[in-house]
């Protein structure tokens, strides 16, 4: 992505109640202050999930704002990096769009998953998702996306992107607990655009 702010300030981080009938929400917090845009998370995810070229559950976009055209003045250009996994939304647009009910949000931890046995690869979810999370796997003819590494969570491990993060700026945990940490650090919470799907992934201002 080139130029133009995409982050919306939401000011002081507030506690978010888990969705309806949901016990809790597991999610990620990416502290954009320290993200260096090295794409290690993208590659760790690829290696963990063994996805084909072109299918990336986690992408990193770099956003450039401002201009620098006069060397005799201090440059005003800014650049920051935003890793984009599945947002595991409170009201997932993909789930609502799926015609066969292949997408579910787990009650116990709020993880949004695609059932590959049910998926017919119609790509409606890809059109519905404002974050571009669902990816079409042309080899298997189904949609796939970030699972928050559920297979690792079952073994008591963190998602692969979190354990590989070079700048150690990616965190995994319960939504409310992570929010408390953000509050403690007095970091400023931001969201990517305003989409109305209640994304659970937390970002703090770069």
């Amino acid at each position, binding site marked *: 992505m*080139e130029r133009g702010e995409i982050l919306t300030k939401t000011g002081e981080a507030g506690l978010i109640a888990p969705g309806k009938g949901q016990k809790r929400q597991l999610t990620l917090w990416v502290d954009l*202050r*320290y993200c*260096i*845009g*090295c*794409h*290690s998370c*993208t*590659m760790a995810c*690829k290696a963990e999930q063994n996805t084909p*070229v*072109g299918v*990336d559950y986690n992408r990193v976009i770099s956003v*450039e704002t*401002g*201009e*620098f*055209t*006069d*060397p*005799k*003045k*201090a*440059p005003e*250009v*800014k*650049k*920051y*990096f935003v890793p984009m996994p599945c947002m595991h939304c409170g009201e997932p647009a993909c789930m609502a769009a799926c015609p066969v009910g292949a997408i579910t949000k787990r009650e116990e931890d709020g993880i949004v998953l695609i059932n590959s046995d049910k998926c017919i690869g119609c790509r409606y979810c890809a059109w519905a998702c404002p974050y571009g999370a669902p990816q079409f796997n042309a080899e298997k003819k189904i949609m796939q996306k970030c699972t928050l590494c559920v297979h690792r969570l079952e073994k008591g491990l963190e998602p692969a992107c979190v354990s590989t993060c*070079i*700048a*150690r*700026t990616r965190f995994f945990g319960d939504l409310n607990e992570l929010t408390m940490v953000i509050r403690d650090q007095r970091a400023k919470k931001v969201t990517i655009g305003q989409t109305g799907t209640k994304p659970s992934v937390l970002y703090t201002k*770069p």
Partner: protein
Amino acid sequence: MAPDFENATYIINFGTSIGEAEYPMQTRARYMQKWFKRKGTHSPDVKHVIVNPRLSKAAAKVAMGDQGEWLPLRPATDGFFVLGLIRWIIENKAYDADFISRPSREAAEAGGYKNGWTDMTYLVSSVEPKVFLTGEKAGLKKSDFVVSVNGKVTEWDNVKGRADLDTSVMIGGVEYKTAFRMLRERAQEKTLSEAEDVCDIPNGTIARIAKEFSSAKKPVAEFYRGIVQHTNGWGNGRAVIMLNVLMGNINKKGGYTKGHLAYKGSPGYQKKLKPRGVSACRHKSAYEGKKKVPTRPWYPFASRDVAPEWWSSVRQGYPYKIKAVLNYYNGVAYTLPYNKPVVDAMKDTKAIPLYFSIDLWMGESSMYADYILPDTSYLERFGYFHSYPTVMTRVGALRQPVVGTLDPKTHDYRGVHPDTRTADDILIQLALKLGLPNFGKDGMGKGKDLFNAWDLWNEYYKTKHYEGMSGLDPNGPLARIGGLFENPANKYDGEYIKLSGGRIERPIFTYHNKVAKTKNSMTGRYFDALPTYRTIYDTTETPLKVDEKEYPFQICTHKDAYHTQSRTASNLWLMSIKPENSIDINPADAKKLGVSTGDWVRAKSPTSPVWPEHPNHYKDGWYKYKARVTSVVRPGVILVCHSYGRWGAGARPWYMDGKPQYIDERIGAGFQLNPLQMADPVLKNVVLIDPISGATEQTGTRIKIERI
């Protein structure tokens, strides 16, 4: 050398790319981010200044918060900026006068210093050769250096306190100045505003940065390739070291440090052999010929091969004709700046009658070889890894194969493909066939055979610092942990860095005596042993003259965090992150050229060769690129990322025994900048090279661009 990120409070990075390049990339990136995590991104206690024509990842981070600033200099003008800083610091007496006035260990220790002493008070002749005044010459006892104490000359090791810092003495009608005075006079050759005009930065910047830097609690300046890969790169690097010496921060907590001494092994031998003769690129060799000026330059101070000069010399048959070449781990045809002469040399069967290559794939340099010996990948070999100064405690890592098979009896290792051998094994097999000493039965001493790579590395990890350790034994601690690592908590010794592995008992030299008494072989004139206010010059040290109106842009290059030079182009996962690179142009320049993102442009330098076989050759020495308009690069500079635009390694069709082999066009996507790098106007068939260090000129060549 590297800064102690943990405790520094003000760091200036010259031409480094933390977060993308640097050794080791992950560790340095993490240290940088830890630094801000500890202090907070908006803390007034720390500041990070990034000097780079390009908004690197580190520059992007500091530009985002309040933790520093990005200073985009014009490429190849770093010498002006650093000498400007030195001028301000000296004129405002902002340096650590006490530390740099102490001329010996005893004097330094009397002042309470444990990090050595400097040569700043040593007297240097003001007439050529400008070398240190010795005791004999000054009519004193035999002594390497002489200092002045309150106007009276004496031997350096005779001083228990401070010596005169900014002074000169007359001996035998010759003026001898202190190294400090030499530096001061050099720095005062240009005013700050003159330097700022050359660097093309806002007026007042140098004084402001110098003031902030010198008044910070723990200031450090560090440099890497960006400022040393120039014809004046040696001087640029020295200037940054002097900046640190003036601050007295060498090997101090929060200062500038050499880091640890790596753990090393040292396998034995039957018969000690020494390398002899002169290398074809004449590195580490001074010119001693009869002709006044040699055909090609000699590089007595180049510690490693001067690769582009090697190939061009071999083609010319200077200083001798060669019979065969064995090339390994050296993708010169793709990698070297101004790479066409390298390819021409490889094609010239008269200059190189026999050419062998050890390569993992059909690389750009291997495609011209007579014989290719297939290598194994990095996951299929044994080896040694040390670490870099960033890590301050001792490290010695052990590389072991991840895949493949090891014969339990002979320890003969084979990679996944049956026809490949590790490069070590290839060389050992060659040596065995040739019957060279120190190989085979009892090769490394009695009872220590050397038949394969395993034998070598197993012995390596049992000797010197690894004495009595488990070698490559898969159940031993070395192999299981992956190396030998000192407890990282033992970094400091009070206010100083411990320098694990021992301190070197010698002065911290800012003045390079050997360079001062050596002549540039091409001119017969003495080298300047101090940093200079110069930009790009040719091999005779004549300033490069290129019409700035005709060639208004300067080139700059960088690498992406996720690529290892060009070696990862064959990894399609990594290539999918950014499937193609671009020529990055500043919006101000793009407007003048009428170019927008996605347009095709063509570029030409004064020496870019006609090279129809090159993948992005357009015609008549013009090269084509796809443009991207972005403010991450300063006006007047264009940027092309390295690693892209390969034409070997499976990027283009190739055949073995008439059969087409695996290719993927995605490997060769994008563009290469190297043909545009400027050739030396005197030698013509080689890139511009630093006559002292042998470094190549990589950023700063002038080019012109047109929209196609």
